[in-house]
């Protein structure tokens, strides 16, 4: 019973914050609501016996991505000016499409007889994940580090201000 109560509290936190992210017209409010969504998801991970993934989520999402997003919002916008009325798809069609998609998938979830294990193990996972990364998943793990290096260099190259000389030469050639 207590697990169910915790689940529903976390679910309300996650879904409510995600709804603010999706529906708020103020981009700064959306960004701060993203914090609630990520924290709720961290709680859900803990409830799913994924302690290591929950901590990584906390470090990477809340500590990294959220701060980065907040910086980008602050750097690109006058802080509270976004009340755009005409949108990419339009709120109503987008709402209908997402609601229909969610409805179909929830229907499918309840109709599918998922193959489940009879024995559910709730145990610390760090040891097993470490062994998996250094054993069967060693190659993807190394490839991931290359992807991260490429992303790092790419981000630096892209976000560096354009060299004036290059820019003048380009405009002269036109």
């Amino acid at each position: 019973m207590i697990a169910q109560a915790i689940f529903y509290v976390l679910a309300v936190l996650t879904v409510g914050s995600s709804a603010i992210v999706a529906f708020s017209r103020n981009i700064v409010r959306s960004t701060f609501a993203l914090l609630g969504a990520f924290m709720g998801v961290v709680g859900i991970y803990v409830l799913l016996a994924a302690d290591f993934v929950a901590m990584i989520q906390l470090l990477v999402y809340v500590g990294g991505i959220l701060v980065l997003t907040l910086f980008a919002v602050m750097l690109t916008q006058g802080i509270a000016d976004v009340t755009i009325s005409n949108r990419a798809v339009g709120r109503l069609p987008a709402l209908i499409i997402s609601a229909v998609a969610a409805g179909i998938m929830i229907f499918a979830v309840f109709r599918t007889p998922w193959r489940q294990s009879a024995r559910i193990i709730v145990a610390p996972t760090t040891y097993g994940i470490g062994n998996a990364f250094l054993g069967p998943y060693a190659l993807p793990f190394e490839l991931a580090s290359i992807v991260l290096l490429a992303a790092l260099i790419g981000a630096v190259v892209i976000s560096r201000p354009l060299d004036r000389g290059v820019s003048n030469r380009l405009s002269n050639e036109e």
Partner: protein
Amino acid sequence: MPGGLTLNHFLVLSLIVFALGLFCVMSRRNAIGILMGVELILNSANINYLAFALFGGGRYDGQVFSLFVIMLAAAEAVVGLAIVLAIYQDLRTIDVDATETLNG
């Protein structure tokens, strides 16, 4: 799972988060807002991975995959936001409908 929670609880939660992220991606014109919607969608996929990892018998494959998803989400956010900032420096807007100078 102690306490009467089933796989469907977690799947439905992740689907609701996914639908909200989908709505966010489709309805926003602010590029950063679109990236936030993508983050929501990736989080919902991760909830699915971990739910199946737990209820499918406690192997580590699902958890390892969710870690890869988190890693790629971080790379995607870094490069995406760098592109957004570069566009903003050039065009003074991040409205995705206005950034059509690359159109042939």
